């Protein structure tokens, strides 16, 4: 496994995904006294090529490290970012890779990656219950953090009408923001 530079990694993605590759961004920052560089790559792909992108990452690094899946409510779509890191184990060489996928709100489905990376189970379950995204093919789709009596159809991270506005516990005498 050779260590590529950020620009070479992005070129590799463009070749592997073709039209489904939408955009990319590199972020670099110098840290502390010795001014070593801290690098992050953001890659934006279409939903159809999502699994191919994950398999491409597995070619760059044998067991890529998936930290978490974060989700944002952008009004009429939901954006998921899969935070990977590659080239761990080498001093100053690790690169963070954020894989961005956009899902329209009338079709919130995304394929699972637990067959490639078994450790993604908890974070996919959390995305399912908190944002209302359906993960197709997940082996265990029970709720993770919310209690059993929590009302169905209420998704805590959404900012639209399915948010938890009605079940808040506001202190007496305090206006809700």
């Amino acid at each position, binding site marked *: 496994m050779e260590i590529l530079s950020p620009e070479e990694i992005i070129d590799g993605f463009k070749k592997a995904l073709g039209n489904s590759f939408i955009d990319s961004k590199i972020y670099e920052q110098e840290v502390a006294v010795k001014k070593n560089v801290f690098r992050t790559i953001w890659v934006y792909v279409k939903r159809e090529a999502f699994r191919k992108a994950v398999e491409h990452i597995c070619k760059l690094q044998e067991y890529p490290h998936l930290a978490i899946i974060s989700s944002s409510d952008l009004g009429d779509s939901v954006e998921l970012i899969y935070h990977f890191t590659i080239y761990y184990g080498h001093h100053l060489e690790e690169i963070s890779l954020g894989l961005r996928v956009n899902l329209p709100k009338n079709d919130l489905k995304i394929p699972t990656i637990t067959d490639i990376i078994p450790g993604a189970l908890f974070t996919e379950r959390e995305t399912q219950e908190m944002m209302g995204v359906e993960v197709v093919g997940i082996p265990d789709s029970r709720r993770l953090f*919310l*209690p*059993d*009596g929590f009302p169905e159809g209420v998704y*805590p991270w959404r900012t639209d009408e399915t948010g*938890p506005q009605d079940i*808040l*516990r*506001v*202190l007496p005498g305090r206006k809700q923001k």
Partner: protein
Amino acid sequence: MSFKSFKRALWVYHLNTGSCNGCDIEILAVLTPRYDAERFGIMLVGSPRHADVLLVTGPVGRQMVPRLKRIYEQVPDPKMVIAIGGCGLEGGVFHESYNLAGPIDQHIPVDVYVPGCPPRPEAIIEAVVKAWVKLEKVEQGVS
């Protein structure tokens, strides 16, 4: 009203209703050799049926309400309840969350409140002593 000596040792049971563990660590620090409450006879027990005093920490999450009530009923009379930490008083920093079911005294009666986030071990010892004095008064029939 002064007491010459306490008639017996005090056994406490600790219950965590969903706290961040800051208060739990300070409770445990009370029993270690630095503050050493065990030399006064205050002992932590593993079952609520042996306890005299219930120490409750944490904002009460929705799942923990039935457990809180059940453990309160298992502690035999006469008993005291101490609510430790700002979360038990009115939710603390989490006061507007969608998963909280109210402060502790909406579910069980509380005798001593200890504010702080987390309160210092000295404050917890003072709270236990206050509860002890109150318990002895109740046992002697003094109101």
